[in-house]
């Protein structure tokens, strides 16, 4: 056992952080840096790396709160060998089927509750634009009955990988909330001292970190094992770390986090969106219960 980043993994992490941090790289740049080709075999022009590397990359994407159909495009390339932009969309237990970024997509990977998968050319998808809460993640509402799919070992892999990569995004986002909260708490003064000196704020931040760190390790381990139930558990913890973290980050920012400009709210809105992407809480818990 050596459950820590290898030197190569550290390098990958550093390189990606440089590309995505503090700027919004174009889709072209993300493609060039190989974000979607990490797991594609070398003979097919990819980097031939594994799920752990993909998870590290997506953690950085989450930290930078990148927009775009990240998860689906990676999974389409790595698991289905499909080129172009794609998004994995789950038919939820209730409520509408929502497809992010539909007009930019080549494929919609529609996952049914039983994990059967319909691979749809995006142009053939009948959907209407809907006003999304997250301004950086436009949504389209699917019309009519979702077409049926099929179940193969590959489709189960699509379901599991999409959940895991979304969990990685959430872990990155959760770490971002800790960083933003701490930075603000260090400088903002109230009642004559930085608010970060108040125990209430310190404890809020400490719990944020604890949630983010536990989720991070869970996501890394699930990437190494590739186990579906472990992935479900990791997603559960990552969602909690991201949503709860973004919520607390906003609380630390007080009124100043309540403005549109402060951008703290974008962390929360994205955390909410990713919480429903891949397997949601109910589905993860169901999966975990099957092994008890």
């Amino acid at each position: 056992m050596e459950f820590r980043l290898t030197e190569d993994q550290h390098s990958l992490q550093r390189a990606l952080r440089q590309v995505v941090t503090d700027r919004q790289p174009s889709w072209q740049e993300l493609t060039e840096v190989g974000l979607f080709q990490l797991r594609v075999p070398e003979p097919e022009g990819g980097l031939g790396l594994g799920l752990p590397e993909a998870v590290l990359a997506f953690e950085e994407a989450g930290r930078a709160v990148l927009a775009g159909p990240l998860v689906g495009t990676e999974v389409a390339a790595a698991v289905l060998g499909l080129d172009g932009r794609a998004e994995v969309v789950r038919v939820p237990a209730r409520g509408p089927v929502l497809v992010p970024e539909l007009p930019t997509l080549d494929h919609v990977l529609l996952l049914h509750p039983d994990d059967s998968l319909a691979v749809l050319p995006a142009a053939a998808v009948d959907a209407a634009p809907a006003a999304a809460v997250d301004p950086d993640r436009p949504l389209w509402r699917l019309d009519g009955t979702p077409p049926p799919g099929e179940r193969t070992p590959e489709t189960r892999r699509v379901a599991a990988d999409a959940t895991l990569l979304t969990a990685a995004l959430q872990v990155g986002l959760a770490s971002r909330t800790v960083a933003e909260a701490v930075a603000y708490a260090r400088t903002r003064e109230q009642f004559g001292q930085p608010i970060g000196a108040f125990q209430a704020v310190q404890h809020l931040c400490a719990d944020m970190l604890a949630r983010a760190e536990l989720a991070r390790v869970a996501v890394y381990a699930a990437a190494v094992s590739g186990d579906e139930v472990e992935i479900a558990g990791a997603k559960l913890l990552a969602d909690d770390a991201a949503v709860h973290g973004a919520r607390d980050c906003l609380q630390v920012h007080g009124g100043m986090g309540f403005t549109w400009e402060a951008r703290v709210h974008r962390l929360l809105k994205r955390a909410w969106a990713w919480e429903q992407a891949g397997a949601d809480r109910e589905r993860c818990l169901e999966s975990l219960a099957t092994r008890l």
Partner: protein
Amino acid sequence: MQLSDTTEEADFRRRLREWLGKTLPELPAAPDPSDWPGRRAFDTAWQRRLFDAGYAGIHWPVDAGGRGATPSEHLIFLEETELAGAPYVGANFVGLLHAGPTIATEGTPEQRARFLPPVLRGEEIWCQGFSEPGAGSDLAALRTRAVRDGDAYVVTGSKIWTSHAEVADWCELLVRTDPDAPKHRGITWLAMPMDAPGVTVRPLKTLAGTTEFAELFLDEVRIPVANRLGAENDGWRVTMVTLSFERGTAFASETVACQREVRELARVARANGAWEDLELRRELATLAAEFAALWRLVQWNVSEAAANGVPGAGGSVFKLRFSEARQRLYDVAARVVGGEALLEGAWSAQRLQGLSYTIAAGTSQIQRNIVAQRILGLPRGR
């Protein structure tokens, strides 16, 4: 202990209900939230109707032009208007619930005569210039500066979280007149005309994407000394005194509204299948119990205030529990409606707005400090 109406209260409730039943259908459609002049017109027209029916300033003293109703009657008014779906106090909020009562208590006869009637009749709108970007929960750390120049104060600074600034006639403004005094001691209360030169209103877009609030930028605004309420440097006391006017009713309408929302959510859940989820059903049941209890706490605080003149220290306890229950309500709503929660709509707007409940008017952290130190008597830290 008595929860039912007295004969007089039942009578008051019956008449109010009759009047609402007759009046509400006559109202025009509510304006779009982004139509500020439309909102002002709608809100002031409603206020005028209340005035004509004798319900304006229901809790104001009779000698200030109000109805002088008992706290119980005030509560009945808030409950019935909310249940009937009557308009909210809206643009009249600051005038009726803060600036007005402050002037009624601390104003000279001339100030009362000048400022109070237009508020009651829905003719003048007030906004509040208390909060500042740098001050936050530490309200008394405000830095907007007023320098005396003859018969006027010259005011420079900025204010934030001002509602209805776009359509207000007056602003109740807190300014610092003595920068050397301890922070609560150098503050003065001024009535600022919003059309005075040097006043700039900038809409403030919130995380919900709306511009419910504005920032005020004040650049050498001249405000007559005659517009000062109370003594110079006594503005903190002047402002705080008004809180005793509130008598436990502050969140009454919202509590009734939350009870309605829980029931509505149960209906949604029954319709979309979420009701079959035992965990969600229990969440809804828990919320129902909490808001029912919070309503009882409102009734308790109002009764105590009626008997003792002040609402007591229960306000922080109420706000702590109410803020958290209401935020949880919208989180549960998001689970009930599923994917709809990611789309703009009533529930997601409430969820976003609701994020302010544990921040605005004293964060929950500050509320806990108050409860611990003022009610429980725990010592301050070094």
